[in-house]
């Protein structure tokens, strides 16, 4: 994967596969502490201790079409190569929270990438799941919640052209503004 946003998409797809009705995605860029943290928290069916312990092993997957699951091991390796870590807490019937942390300025840290594009694909592609995003860049935050949008639309599908434009623009503007407001040296840190 070339972007952290693609890893977020991949992890969030696991939540959907675990029958989650609500998925919270968080991204925090803390330039002062030089950390970048992402998390995906769901209310899906969860995993037992043994599964959590084995899930970073590339030979463990819940999928039946192919035996090798690579999403979590890839993200774990990426985080650990950037002075970071990956943690999973989960319990059967209570859901799963996956958290990955990176040294923000690490030379090997992949870019965050198209976070708006990831949320857009999830919100439209899995309309029955309530998606929230909490994005923080230093002191600036942006929050997105698909719940009120779905409620307002009633039975009008999210893939109607005008609704697509609304969701896409909300996400793109909100995330871009958060990045602008977040830190005066954000641009320098991103290109480092």
């Amino acid at each position, binding site marked *: *994967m070339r972007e952290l946003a*693609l890893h977020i*998409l*991949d992890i969030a*797809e696991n939540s*959907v*596969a675990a029958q989650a009705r609500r998925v919270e995605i968080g991204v925090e860029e803390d330039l002062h502490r030089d950390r970048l943290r992402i998390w995906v928290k769901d209310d899906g069916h969860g995993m037992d201790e043994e599964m959590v312990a084995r899930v970073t092993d590339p030979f463990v997957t819940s*999928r039946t*079409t*192919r035996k090798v*699951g*690579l*999403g979590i091991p890839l993200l774990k390796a990426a985080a650990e190569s950037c002075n970071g870590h990956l943690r999973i807490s989960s319990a059967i019937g209570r859901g799963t929270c996956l958290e990955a942390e990176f040294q923000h300025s690490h030379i090997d840290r992949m870019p965050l990438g*198209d976070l708006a*594009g*990831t949320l*857009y*694909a999830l919100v*439209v*592609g*899995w309309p029955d799941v309530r998606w929230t995003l909490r994005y923080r860049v230093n002191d600036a*935050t*942006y*929050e*997105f*919640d698909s719940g*009120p*949008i779905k409620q*307002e*639309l*009633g039975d*009008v*599908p999210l*893939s*109607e*052209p*005008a*609704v*697509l*434009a*609304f969701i*896409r*623009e*909300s996400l793109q*503007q*909100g995330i871009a*503004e*958060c990045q602008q407001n977040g830190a005066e040296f954000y641009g320098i840190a991103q290109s480092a």
Partner: protein
Amino acid sequence: MPAVKSLEELRKLREEAIQKRKAKTTSGDVQITVAMGTCGIAAGARDTMRAVLDEIEANNLTGVIVKQTGCIGLCELEPIVMVEIGGQPKVTYGKVNVERARQIMKEHVVGGKVLSEYVIQSA
């Protein structure tokens, strides 16, 4: 910063969408499914889906439902996109990059012509 641009705006969109239902631009109900397993994502499925949604937006196509699915066991042919129009058989396309996705939307979804050179299975 509000969570959504404005709920008032959404209310307006909802009414417009209901009005437009009476004049559908596509030939029957269309369902497009994008495979979004790890294999699909690594092969570019997010941008493929984005291209599908951008075509819907740009050409104002109503009555198209876009969904996702996981890995369907054909990882080497990702990104995979399935198109179902009305009662017609489902068409499965392989290696659907952004350019092919746009072509499928224009020629198959709007034009009604299956792009057989990209089809991996028709069932």
